[in-house]
């Protein structure tokens, strides 16, 4: 069971309180009708699914109930950072340095 840092509560809390919510930084297009079928398909279904650093969303479901973003390294299953919704992606290079 992972410990996850909620950037709103500013606490490390057990995974049981959280729910995974898919890949991060995939904004809903402001006008979906302008998108081609292929573009809309990509928005709906195409995800990066990397072996390594993954930007993803979590929700502190059984806590403050806020959605937030996280950087997780999927091989070792380790969180490198969590940050609030709307904040820019953190710099991976410096995070990987911290992980070592």
């Amino acid at each position, binding site marked *: *069971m*992972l410990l996850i840092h909620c950037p709103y509560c500013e606490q490390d809390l057990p995974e049981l309180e959280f*729910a995974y919510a898919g890949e991060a930084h995939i904004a*809903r297009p402001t006008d979906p009708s302008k*998108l081609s079928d292929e573009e809309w398909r990509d928005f709906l279904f195409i995800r990066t699914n990397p072996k390594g650093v993954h930007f993803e969303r979590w929700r502190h*479901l059984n806590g403050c109930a806020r959605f937030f973003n996280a950087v997780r390294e999927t091989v070792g299953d*380790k969180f490198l950072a969590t940050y609030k919704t709307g904040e820019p992606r953190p710099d991976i290079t410096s995070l990987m340095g911290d992980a070592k």
Partner: protein
Amino acid sequence: MTTYRLPNRGRVDHGKPVRFSFDGKSYQGLAGDTLASALLANGVHLMGRSFKYHRPRGVVSAGSDEPNALFGTRRGAGRFEPNTRATIQELREGLDATSQNRWPSLAFDMGAINDNLGSLFSAGFYYKTFMWPRAFWDRVYEPVIRNAAGLGVSPSEPDADSYASRFAHVDVLVVGAGPAGLAAALAAGRSGASVMLVDENSEVGGTLLSEPAVTIDDKPAWDWLAATTAEFDALPNVTVMTRTTAIGYYHQNLVGLCQRLTDHLDTPPEGAPRERMWKVRAREVVLAQGALEKPLVFDGNDRPGVLLAGAAQTYLNRYGVKVGDRPAIVTAHDSAWYTAFDLAEAGAKPAAIVDVRATVDHALTDRARALGIEALLGRTVTGTSGRLRVKSLRVNRMDGGKAGEARDIACDAVLMCGGWTPCLHLFSHTQGKLTWDEALQVYLPGKKTETVQIAGAGRGLWSIAASLEDGANAGTLAARDVGCQAEAPAFTVSADRTGSGVTCKELPTDRDAGKAKAFIDFQNDVTAKDIRLAVREGMRSIEHVKRYTTNGMATDQGKMSNVNGLMIAADALGKAPPQVGLTTFRPPYSPTTFGSFAGYHKDATFEVTRKTPIDGWAEAQGAAYEPVSLWRRAWYFPKPGEDMHAAVSRECRGARASVGIFDASTLGKIEVVGPDAVTFMERMYTNPWAKLAPGRCRYGLLLGEDGFIRDDGVIGRLSADRFHVTTTTGGAARVLNMMEDYLQTEWPDLKVWLTSTTEQWAVVALQGPNARKVLEPFVEGLDISAEAFPHMAVAECTVAGFPARLFRVSFTGELGFEVNVPARHGRALWEKLWEAGQQYDIVPYGTETMHVLRAEKGYIIVGQDTDGTLTPDDAGLTWAIGKAKPDFVGKRSLTRPDMVAKGRKQLVGLLTDDPKVVLQEGAQIVADPAQPKPMTMIGHVTSSYWSDALGRSIAMAVVVDGRDRDGQTLHVPMPDGTITAKVVKGTVFLDPENARISV
């Protein structure tokens, strides 16, 4: 009976005899014994039969690595456990143990014929033998294999025991209480850090329990142990838990511990849990798991009486039991020599010490000579004899790397030692990397992924002095890492018997190696030749060799077998061991009961049962219940003598004829509030909301972004900025999550607040032509006449003196009201309406009647009539889409090519040709029943009921291009014949004009 117990020796209580039985025969042991040591004290070595060949087997080890001595143990009804390890189970008064895998008896087992057919059961046997004919698999092979397979028998009664669980947070968790673990806990404990020290044995000490002659700080080992234990007792920050196995090491220093609480007690306290599962989050972990002794691999190394030398030393020194009078020692390591010396000093007459090494330390040979033990160096062992107990050992000289002249040595036990290997299990759970140590010929812990230290024999330090020092350093570092001031204690150790040795593959033989039964994995009956065969047949990866031969896949997790298997596979592959690699150890470390995993999650506390405020009334009425997500809901209200069918028909009639009362409190409810509430609703739901006037309701349809139906429900607009949203019972949490997701992350600019109000409102539905008559006298502040309060109206008012939100809605097709009152008033409201309804023969109805009534009207249930692949058009709900809206969740997907293509499944009505036949929900539908199998299925039945109102069965189904098939006859093949049914385009079976709703 001969006793092998030595008086005044060991840690057992010689003044406390304990009676127990084995296969119905009564025996006596001592308090402090394990089942294994007590049987050995009685001269019993034959303890079980092997898994595949049914070979007679005895105990091999003295710890949790035991592969052979597995018993069924029983303590009264519901307390039977198969595969209890005799080496772990402590003796208790009346312990009832039975041997396994034998018929009719342990000494004469019919299954042993497999041993003579061994050539049929080679590696990959299952894969090769049962390939054909295909039809034999189901009828012949599988039943036979299933009957023969498995260790022991499953318990046949519910477990009468209870199990507990607990969380703990500590600074330092030390796993293993041998010299390294004790020193680590001392160092950390003295610094003030919170320390938890756990060990799977019944007492702390590890190796020290088997090495009483060692002195530490001028004290005999056991005195030092007592002083150390006393110091732990005096330190409030140190918790010591014995009988506690660290079963798994998970992320971020979470370690699972299984603590055995009552299995060792003569009489467990009433209600005491049998085991407790701990989840410990430690800032620092010190692994001091020690090392595991490896068997030597030679023909007949599995006979009863052949055991690990270190185990024999433990039985002697810890339990005061000689494993034999005339043991022969076979070793590749110095440590077994000390076992021989201890046994000789205790009165046994070791037959010989056979060492595969040509030279050893002179101190060893000198001591052997002094004790009158013959030492044979540079030998190989090529066989043993004895059916139920080893009688002799066949030893050969080595000539130029080959087995030469042979000689038989009479013995009553064979003590083998193939050296020691660090116990890497928990470290492997963390995905820690292993490093091959060429000098020690072992794998050691390498790159770490967690905040962990490995101390002592677990990283290849074999002596007690080195382990104490290493443990002290590890404990000190751990304490400093958590911010404590720590100094590593120093220890002076004497009489420490450090040894060294070599690592072997299977021992050379002068006989046909293909006929040798030289076991590597005793529990899964894997021999050296199986590994070589697997390599010859093309297995290159150690992971493939493992699965093909099942080496290391038994319940002992390869504790004894993995490294021997690797050495032989590496030799067969012509590679160095590190090029072959070790298979991954996975949790649990040793077999763990399901009960301890389940903990409190059983029976009534298996999971939460949600009950409505009206649940107690339904229970008093004798309602039958059904689970709906976590809720338990009244299913129907049977009267005496009624079955479900009769009760549901009566309830349906009552509601249609006069009035029914229904507990709808489980409906999901979300309050959507704020200046932008209407904008939010416009974007979330398919329907238009902007022009919905306050005081009016609308059916709302929710899609996923992929365009498929996710949920639905009636939504009331209470004021310009407030919506009362209802969802399906099971969908409430999902819908709120989805709404929150969009609100927080896509449209954070909207001023909207979402609140779950499901449990805040109790909802009582009155449905039927007399519903208004029952309700009207209770309503204050609102005119509920047909004109003033039409269908799909909502208003706040007072009902029976309680503040209420009153909806005029119908899920039955009848005149209907749903009264929402604060949950605490739900039961009182229900009882008042119930009483007032008596003059109209009011009938309470459950979810089954609700389902029938709604199906008669063709109202869908999301999740029953839809399955996550239905669009609004598929379900016939295009009317619920706001065509003029520029966007809503899922809108763009509705024009994707596949969503508008022909051949989609559409929801239609289905009427059986025989009106008495009720289709089975989920039944598959075909167009042509004469087509060859497998048939092309074109849909399935989603809802199907007997309709009392229509006097016939009705059904809904999703069928490919269903609406184009109006009037077509389709076929539903069932086991006892094919049912024919006709498609009706609409799903409304009753009152299509909605005349009954509008009264």
